């Protein structure tokens, strides 16, 4: 890994007709770690990844690898490895031929084909037609395609989907290893539990918008304090003076960085009487579900999380 490359998504939006799949999405992915790209099904993960890879045109905004769009990369497959879905194969073609075709197209040495097939554990099955492959084997072949160009950046869409427990353990270790080699690894999933053991940081989106970006540890400690006061402006001022991160959640304020006792003390010193003070003890999964709004009633108004400008 001579140089390292980050992924930068900036104010990205995409509409399909009247449906806005991605709206004003910005985040970045750093090299040397595994980043989870999380959100419920239909949150816009795949659309974002496909825009990043030049397969779908953005309505506005940009998505680049170290400043260059996928189409601008001189040798895209040697820079970015991609596994999108487990079905992009001609069933009548062998795994080996499948990879050889794209190695040829991208001017990648043919010796890489057998190498990556061995790497993902398909070495002995590479001369079989893909039509006879199980879902797990297809996932591995997809991963082999991603590794074909020995890329610095890996973009993997739901790579764990359909793998058996042994395969899941294998891919987790594999992702770790890739990140330790200094590569940038972005892994999407709709299940936090699926990836939380293997990712260092997370980008969480819901309904096409960013709802969290940061370390997984930070997500876990979002045991937030819900607080409110008749004099909300006074409360906000007092909390902000104390350095608290405040968000408006529904009808209350949410404080992520302080405990309930501290919030109460700050309000007391500022002479603000509280109408609500409650600790919301959220585990990782709860924090995730709260962020993506999975608990809001179907068809109902999504819980709006507004960021109060600092």
């Amino acid at each position: 890994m001579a140089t390292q490359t980050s992924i930068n998504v900036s104010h990205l939006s995409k509409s399909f007709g009247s449906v806005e799949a991605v709206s004003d999405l910005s985040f970045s992915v750093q090299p040397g770690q595994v980043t989870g790209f999380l959100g419920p099904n239909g949150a816009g993960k795949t659309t974002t990844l496909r825009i990043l890879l030049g397969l779908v045109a953005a309505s506005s905004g940009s998505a680049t690898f170290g400043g260059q769009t996928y189409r601008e990369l001189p040798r895209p497959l040697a820079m970015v490895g991609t596994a999108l879905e487990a079905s992009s194969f001609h069933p009548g073609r062998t795994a080996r031929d499948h990879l050889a075709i794209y190695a040829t197209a991208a001017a990648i040495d043919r010796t890489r084909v057998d190498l990556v097939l061995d790497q993902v554990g398909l070495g002995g099955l590479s001369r079989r037609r893909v039509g006879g492959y199980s879902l797990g084997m297809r996932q591995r072949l997809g991963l082999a395609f991603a590794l074909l160009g020995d890329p610095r950046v890996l973009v993997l869409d739901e790579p764990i989907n359909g793998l058996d427990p042994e395969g899941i353990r294998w891919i987790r270790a594999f992702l770790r290893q890739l990140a330790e080699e200094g590569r940038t690894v972005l892994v999407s999933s709709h299940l936090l539990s699926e990836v939380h053991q293997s990712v260092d940081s997370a980008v969480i989106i819901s309904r096409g918008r960013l709802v969290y970006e940061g370390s997984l540890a930070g997500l876990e400690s979002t045991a937030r304090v819900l607080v409110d006061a008749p004099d909300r402006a006074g409360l906000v001022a007092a909390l902000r003076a104390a350095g608290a991160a405040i968000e408006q959640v529904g009808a209350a304020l949410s404080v992520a960085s302080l405990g309930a006792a501290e919030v109460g003390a700050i309000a007391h010193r500022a002479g603000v009487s509280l109408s609500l003070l409650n600790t919301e003890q959220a585990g990782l999964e709860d924090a995730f579900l709260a962020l993506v709004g999975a608990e809001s009633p179907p068809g109902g108004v999504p819980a709006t999380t507004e960021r109060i400008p600092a």
Partner: protein
Amino acid sequence: MNLVNATRAEFSKLLTVRLWWILAIVLFVYVGFTAGLLAGVFTGLIDSTGDQLPAALADVHLIVYSSASSIGYVFPVLLGALVTTSEFRHQTLTPTFLANPRRGQVLLAKVITLAVFGAFYGAVAVAASVGVGGAVLSVTGGDAMLDSEDTWLLMARAVVAMALWGAVGVGLGAVVPNQVAVIVILLAFTQFLEPVLRLGASVWEWTARLGQYLPGAASDALVGASVFSIAGPGGPSASTMMLEWWQGGLVLLAMALVATAIGYFTTWKRDVT
């Protein structure tokens, strides 16, 4: 990621699934059978009419040999349309465009590849029509005319026509990416609609003038002979109205280019989801 690599990749795509040689075998059998049948029927006709040959039957051998393309042209179009639509059907456009994001280059590589495969199909079809048809002509007392320059010229033009048809198939597949739809359209048009239109067009002179621009008619013009040229109800004057051979070639080439361009702008450049 240049046109040479892109074309080599497209060749590999074709050669690594079974479709191409299955179609080639069917093509050989189909054209060989048809050419043999035509040769038998024509020499039978000549025998029964003695030396009083109808003018249109003077070049029996050319009509027999031209079945390579006049009957066989559906195979390269079908191959081109099938390999193009299979990219949509099996979602292989995703890895294709990941390996080479220059989509125009990929489509051009496909056109080149299918033109070469079309030429190969042309060689297979000519081998069938000349091999079987010529053998039947010889056996039944006709003349295979293999030493005639016209025969060899026709064989060469049949190969060119089949190459162009392969390119037309790619364009068609890009315009109609639904594989079932494109097969139905292709078979309905080439096997039913166009023969009927050509027969109908040969009734009057002004329709015949239009009819010569029909794809199959243009192809036959390029090749220089066709069984259709003697089958018209309007008699030789209307039914033998044909474009010059090079005009026929240009009509086919234009069809390939226009279809490919339309396909590029409508489906090929679209979001791959």
